[in-house]
């Protein structure tokens, strides 16, 4: 019995890990936040970061992603509800402002430490934010090692 408990806990931990980034269903989020790029998992940023991003969609990483107020509020609610906690690592820059990029979080940097700066710039990849270039199933929230393939 005593041995069974750790085994069960392990199983729980493993399945929770695998499901970490699966996208909770939300029609408005899918329509509005998966048109220019795949839907990034809400779990990958802290609530403060999502609030800051959603506060200025007209200047969204150099693009105009503005939407009407009703949709903006609904998406902000959704993102904040499912936002990541402490595990996202550093969530603020040196001056204390919330980080807006997943690709700037400590967790992302740690997971991708082995990738050379030149790799990110390949024509087939373009940007670290292009998750699907290497994670074939990223749009479904699956970042498992089995579906990783770094294109030449």
């Amino acid at each position: 019995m005593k041995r069974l408990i750790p085994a069960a806990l392990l199983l729980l931990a493993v399945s929770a890990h695998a499901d970490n980034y699966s996208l909770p269903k939300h029609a408005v989020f899918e329509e509005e936040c998966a048109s220019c790029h795949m839907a990034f998992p809400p779990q990958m940023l802290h609530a403060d970061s999502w609030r800051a991003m959603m506060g200025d969609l007209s200047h969204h990483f150099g693009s105009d992603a503005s939407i009407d107020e009703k949709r903006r509020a609904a998406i902000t609610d959704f993102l904040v509800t499912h936002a990541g906690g402490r595990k996202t690592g550093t969530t603020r820059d040196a001056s204390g402002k919330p980080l807006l990029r997943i690709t700037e979080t400590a967790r992302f940097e740690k997971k991708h430490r082995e990738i050379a700066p030149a790799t990110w710039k390949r024509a087939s990849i373009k940007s670290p934010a292009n998750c699907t270039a290497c994670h074939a199933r990223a749009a479904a929230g699956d970042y498992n090692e089995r579906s990783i393939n770094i294109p030449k």
Partner: protein
Amino acid sequence: MRKLFIIAALLAATGAQAETPRDFLTRFEKEAGAAASAERGARFFNTKQGGEWSCASCHTDKPTQAGRHAKTDKPIAALAPAANAERFTDAAKVDKWFRRNCNDTVNRLCSAQEKADVMAWLLTIK
């Protein structure tokens, strides 16, 4: 009876919303107070207007084929109505993307004339 009522209500709802690409050409021409020119539309669509991108940077200069987002590389379905029946059927969507994409390419909203011209060109390509 109840079923019939629901069907009628549904029909009324879609009837009020559904628009065709031609409706947009008519609307933009009316707002501009002048006829559209497909030739001007092609030029506007395919050349940079001072910014980093032209419309063609993401939608290609043959919008009957699929494009790619110039920054994120995400595939974008064809924009020309001849190739994609879902295009230009929803006013809220059309207005939203004209607003965003014009800001990103010409750093301002497009005029009604520019939208009419682009619309006229998109309707000529097969």
